[in-house]
């Protein structure tokens, strides 16, 4: 399945994640067929598609949690090769309200070997504050995770996914369970983060209202890539209308 470099045009030197001819089968059923996709740093790409279209499977394949045929390669800016580090924000329902776990504790559980039930060293607290600053969430540090709103949960998990700093961010349905105000806040932050850290960001979503304003590209997936391109181009395509049974090309 080695295709050499013939789709490489344009991203030889840029930081780029290349997915080439990727297929995933579940038993004998193909879940994903011949996926070709390039993701460049500094871009936000939205992955959309009906339920069961294979979005989560594609994410799992990129994360290396799922076997696939084909190639996923990563080349950092300036050529050479580096092991791809991915920050992942899993789909997250709100946390249990009763859990006496603060945001600081959650960080300790993820990043520290030191048991989180012991007093936290000052240096670690500073580190967490700095990390939360990436999502303007310093004020959340001592809040219990069960008391966070949907948008706050996403922001905290986003900040956590940046530790250690990855090359790429993948967010699974970050907008679900988040109110409109929270959505804008979250998307503004993603926008800020991709500029600040030159990350490529891949997110799945069922909410199309944010796509045009924030995403560089939209990929419409239903077992194979039906359409990819600029948000408006994809949202007004017949493929989009058919995939979401809307009839016509209207959004």
């Amino acid at each position: 399945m080695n295709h050499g470099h013939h789709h490489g045009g344009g991203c030889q030197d840029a930081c780029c994640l290349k997915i080439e001819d990727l297929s995933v089968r579940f038993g004998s059923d193909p879940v994903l067929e011949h996926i070709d996709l390039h993701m460049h740093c500094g871009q936000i790409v939205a992955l959309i598609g009906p339920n069961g279209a294979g979005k989560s499977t594609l994410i799992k394949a990129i994360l290396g949690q799922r076997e696939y045929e084909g190639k996923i390669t990563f080349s950092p800016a300036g050529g050479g090769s580096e092991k791809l580090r991915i920050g992942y924000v899993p789909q997250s329902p709100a946390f249990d309200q009763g859990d006496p776990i603060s945001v600081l504790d959650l960080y300790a559980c993820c990043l520290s070997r030191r048991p989180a039930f012991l007093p936290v060293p000052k240096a670690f607290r500073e580190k967490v504050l700095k990390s939360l600053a990436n999502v303007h969430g310093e004020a959340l540090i001592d809040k219990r995770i069960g008391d966070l709103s949907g948008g706050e949960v996403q922001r905290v998990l986003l900040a956590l996914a940046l530790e250690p700093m990855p090359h790429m961010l993948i967010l699974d349905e970050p907008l679900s369970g988040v109110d409109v105000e929270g959505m804008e806040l979250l998307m503004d932050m993603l926008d800020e983060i991709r500029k600040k850290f030159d990350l490529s960001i891949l997110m799945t979503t069922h909410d199309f209202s944010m796509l045009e304003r924030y995403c560089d590209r939209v990929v419409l997936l239903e077992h194979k890539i039906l359409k990819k391109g600029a948000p408006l181009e994809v949202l007004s395509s017949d493929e989009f209308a058919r995939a979401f049974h809307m009839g016509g090309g209207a959004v």
Partner: protein
Amino acid sequence: MSIWYAICNLLPFQWLIMNFMKNALLAVLIMGPLFGLLSTMVVTARMSFFSDALGHSGFTGIAIGVLCGSVAPMYWAVLLSVAFALLFTYVKGRTSHAAETVISVFSSTAVALGIFIATLNGSSFTKFNKYLIGDILSVTPSEIGLLAIVLLLVVILWALASNRLVLTAVHPQLASSRGIPVRGYETLFTVSIAVVVTLAMSWVGLMVLNSLLVLPAAAARNIARNLREYHLFSVLGALLAGILGLITSYYLGSSTGAVISLYLALYFAVTFCFRKRRA
């Protein structure tokens, strides 16, 4: 032990004169932190019902041990409840039933099997009462040693794995995305609970054992704002209830395990009144 007895003799307490009370106090001092720690995770991982079921399987193990004429039915019980815990984890991962349904299936089967074996050929059930009610006053120095080893192991487990256990319990997907083998940690914790529940059964008693595994943390959750307070309140509550329960039961002559549970229930009630109101 002689050092412990000497320390106790220095204390001006009338209830501490007898050696069995000195043993029991030491056992309670070990069991407080033990159950206080375990209980934080049992409640966070929503396993309170499961730990109850484990006690039942431990009872079945004891019945089998007694049937086989074993001198130490306790080891049979530990073995069986570990097997039960593993089988439960296996079955739960492969059905779409809710966890509570699977737990009930196992727990009722275990109880039925235990009673079946215990009463086989018309044997009397009374010899099993000690496992149902428990008798902490009967604890021997070597059993206290065993308890201390168990506490040490749990503390080591906590020092090495509690961060990962917590993360696995509150957000399994996040845990696995950070490279934590979620299934492995779940199994590790389930097996630890199985061992502790079964070992403690003959002193605390099956009927009230689960209150020790649930109430300290449930009460601590009423007032704790983070993991530090959670652990602290849970361990302190369990310790205090243990000591008070032992003293009270000495003067009133009732089962120690039951009195400890009642103190824990009181602890829950008090913390409930002071719980943090949520926005």
